[in-house]
């Protein structure tokens, strides 16, 4: 029997949807801050807790975080993982260490890559410092 005679049991249907994405008022301020080498958090209008990266609201209070706070480039590792699985959405060389870092002055941790240190030495409670890419490579995507 030729291949032609095999029944069709599966079809491929490409789906492509295009968007023009905008990040929102607060995220935009944070991203523009990165362009200037600044880590801009935002404090909740009600409870004053500082969020970074800010997403527009303090989820505890459901009010905007409109007070901008420039934060230090140093912080403490809260927890971490070593990633050894590839993924389409990640362009970092494997394996790598992703950690939750609580920046000094912030009330919520942000995720960052831990580099320049062997994985086995990375531990919870460790102090770390942000290292910026060469300015020429800065774009609104942060690291």
């Amino acid at each position, binding site marked *: 029997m030729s291949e032609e005679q095999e029944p069709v049991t599966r*079809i491929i*249907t490409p789906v492509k949807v295009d*968007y*023009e994405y*905008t990040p929102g008022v607060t995220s935009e301020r944070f991203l523009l801050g990165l362009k200037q080498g600044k880590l801009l958090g935002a404090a909740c209008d009600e409870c004053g807790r500082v969020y970074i990266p800010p997403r527009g609201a303090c989820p505890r209070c459901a009010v905007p975080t409109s007070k901008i706070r420039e934060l230090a480039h140093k912080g403490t590792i809260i927890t971490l993982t070593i990633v050894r699985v590839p993924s389409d959405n990640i362009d970092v060389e494997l394996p790598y260490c992703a950690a939750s870092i609580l920046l000094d002055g912030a009330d919520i941790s942000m995720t960052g890559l831990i580099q320049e240190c062997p994985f086995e030495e990375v531990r919870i409670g460790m102090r770390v410092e942000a290292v910026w890419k060469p300015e020429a490579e800065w774009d609104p995507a942060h690291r």
Partner: protein
Amino acid sequence: MSDPSAVGEPQLTAAHTLEYAYKRSLGPVLSRFFTGLRDKRIQGVKTGAGQVLVPPAEYDPATGEATTDEFVDVGPGGVVTSWAWVANPRAKHPLDHPFAFALVQLDGADTSLLHVVDTGDESSMSTGMRVKAKWADETIGQIQDIASFVPEEAS
């Protein structure tokens, strides 16, 4: 309380695309339909009440019961039961020149198939007109194997 305003323009915008080529397993009924299309046959399936559904469905809209395993050849000619003239096709539409989306009731079918009719201009379209399937140059087992429907007398 400050209320970020909706006016003005954002400083940062970015293109974002969701793209994936989904692989869809067909099950027995649709497998038969798409295999038929590849072989340039259009098949409908009979419901328990004897209605012929095109495109064939696994389940009867009227009762929710499974359709029968009786398939019948329909078309390739049929009647336009409704149509919408697309004067300015979108990039994702099957044809790049003006055409009609149409519901076509194929000869032997009790329901209509949603597809496109290619007549060149709107004035040659009418409800009740006879059309017939025009096959794609290469048929592989997909709905686009029917390139379009064209007026029967013109073919």
